[in-house]
């Protein structure tokens, strides 16, 4: 499902002393099947943007389109529940939403709410548990007995079991150990490819944005600050620093190396080994 924002404003507590404009004339288009990273400093409007995607809030002005669903101001969406089935949101620290007695029941909670037949639910529970790497022995345990990382996986499985077409990830790896972070991100990427999902990833990690996304959206103070492919966006180091964002380490390193060798070194998706070869070649040139 493709996602379009047309001049979306969102104002919190309008007409009160606490009025606050969280989104300001936001427009963008994300094609179906794209993987978009949304980056921005705290308070740039990322969370507000996310809540529009499944109709938790409606724009104050403007229009949001998600596939065939349209969200407009002052008009209650008729198919809010159908939209929520299509758009799965993994909120920050999703393990806080666990409540059932067993892991199995918690994963089944979403599909059950959306009226999936019982047999199908069983199938989906097993499937999503496997997808997030939860052992079958854990299914009958209470989610509150598990470790933090396992609880996170249960919560994610609960969202995948609904089989959304759009997957929204709000800092899904915050607070996990480095290995867990990579595992979870790789898993999301695999599911994104396998099921051809439209994925939005809110992240503070420029490395993740570079590694997984094909499109980057930079927000600042509720406005769209920059948009483009990761390489386009991360090539503009100064502009990013203006909004307290950094470029990925790879880009920082390339910039430094370019200075050092007096020759421009561009990012072409090379991995560390390829980069080492390039550097060796450059060093060789200089020595001669």
């Amino acid at each position: 499902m493709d996602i379009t924002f047309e001049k979306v404003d969102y104002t919190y507590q309008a007409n009160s002393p606490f009025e606050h404009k969280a989104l300001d004339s936001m427009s963008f288009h994300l094609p179906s099947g794209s993987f978009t990273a949304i980056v921005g400093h705290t308070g740039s409007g990322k969370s507000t943007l996310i809540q529009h995607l499944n109709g938790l809030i409606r724009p104050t002005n403007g229009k949001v389109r998600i596939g065939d669903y349209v969200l407009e101001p002052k008009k209650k969406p008729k198919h809010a529940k159908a939209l929520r089935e299509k758009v799965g949101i993994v909120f920050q620290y999703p393990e806080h939403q666990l409540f059932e007695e067993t892991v199995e029941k918690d994963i089944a909670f979403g599909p059950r709410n959306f009226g999936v037949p019982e047999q199908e639910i069983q199938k989906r529970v097993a499937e999503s548990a496997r997808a997030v790497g939860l052992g079958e022995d854990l299914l009958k345990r209470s989610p509150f007995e598990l470790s933090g990382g396992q609880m996170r996986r249960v919560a994610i499985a609960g969202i995948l079991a609904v089989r959304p077409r759009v997957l929204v990830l709000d800092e899904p790896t915050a607070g996990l150990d480095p290995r867990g972070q990579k595992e979870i991100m790789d898993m999301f990427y695999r599911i994104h490819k396998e099921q051809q999902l439209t994925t939005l990833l809110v992240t503070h990690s420029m490395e993740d944005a570079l590694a997984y996304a094909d499109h980057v959206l930079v927000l600042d103070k509720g406005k769209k600050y920059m948009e483009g492919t990761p390489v386009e966006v991360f090539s503009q180091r100064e502009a990013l620093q203006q909004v307290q964002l950094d470029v990925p380490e790879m880009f920082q390193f390339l910039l430094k190396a370019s200075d050092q060798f007096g020759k421009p070194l561009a990012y072409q998706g090379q991995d560390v080994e390829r980069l080492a070869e390039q550097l060796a070649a450059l060093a060789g040139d200089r020595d001669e």
Partner: protein
Amino acid sequence: MNNLLIVGQYVPTNSIVHRMDPRVKMLIIFFYVIFIFFANNVISYGLFTLFALGSTILTKVPRRFIAKGLTPVWFLIVFTFILHLFVTREGFVLFHVFGLPIYSGALEQGAVISLRFFLLILLTSLLTLTTTPIEITDAVESLLGPLRRFKFPVHELALMMSISLRFIPTLLQETEKISNAQASRGVDFRTGPFRERVRAVIPLLVPLFVSAFKRAEELAMAMEARGYRGGEGRTKLRELRVVKRDVAALVCFIVITAAALITRDYS
């Protein structure tokens, strides 16, 4: 989240009322609430009204803000008035509404009770509008101080109060987050049959309790790590002191109350 009700909302304007000793404010309100029930004629009610309105003006809190915040209470006041209008049967019949007689005594009673109600709410809401929760807790601790002699855990009570006040916004935020998360998983909190909606509360309450307990444990640990050992021998950063403006406010209140008590009908 809920900006309709101002009860418990602090509006900093640094007026003279804001700077008053919270204990004095609480004492005045305490006695005001008692003595307003002694008023029984135009002059005594006028004096109490004067005091409440005068205090309101002195707080410098925008009037629009106070009026808007009292909206839910307005309903109660109007309701009380109408109820009295139809139920009380004193005095003589003034006119008929929908065939029901309206007595003069009912009009009077309704007006008086609504006024009293309004004044009570207005003055008590001024306390939270002009006093931070921390100040209120300090005042409670100080005012209840004498009870310590009877082994009443005054400090603990005050601590409990300030902790719960501190965590109200946190819990509200948490509630919103969890309800968003569960709504995204297809829970419908707003529509559907009553039984369904009650059941929809479980996925909200369980995570909320889990996180509240976790928070409590963490807070206890953090307090102990910083050497907290209860109120014994503990000193305060903000010492409460009664100064001139507090004395002036007290005198003002006493004079008005005394005048009201003198002018009320004793027959």
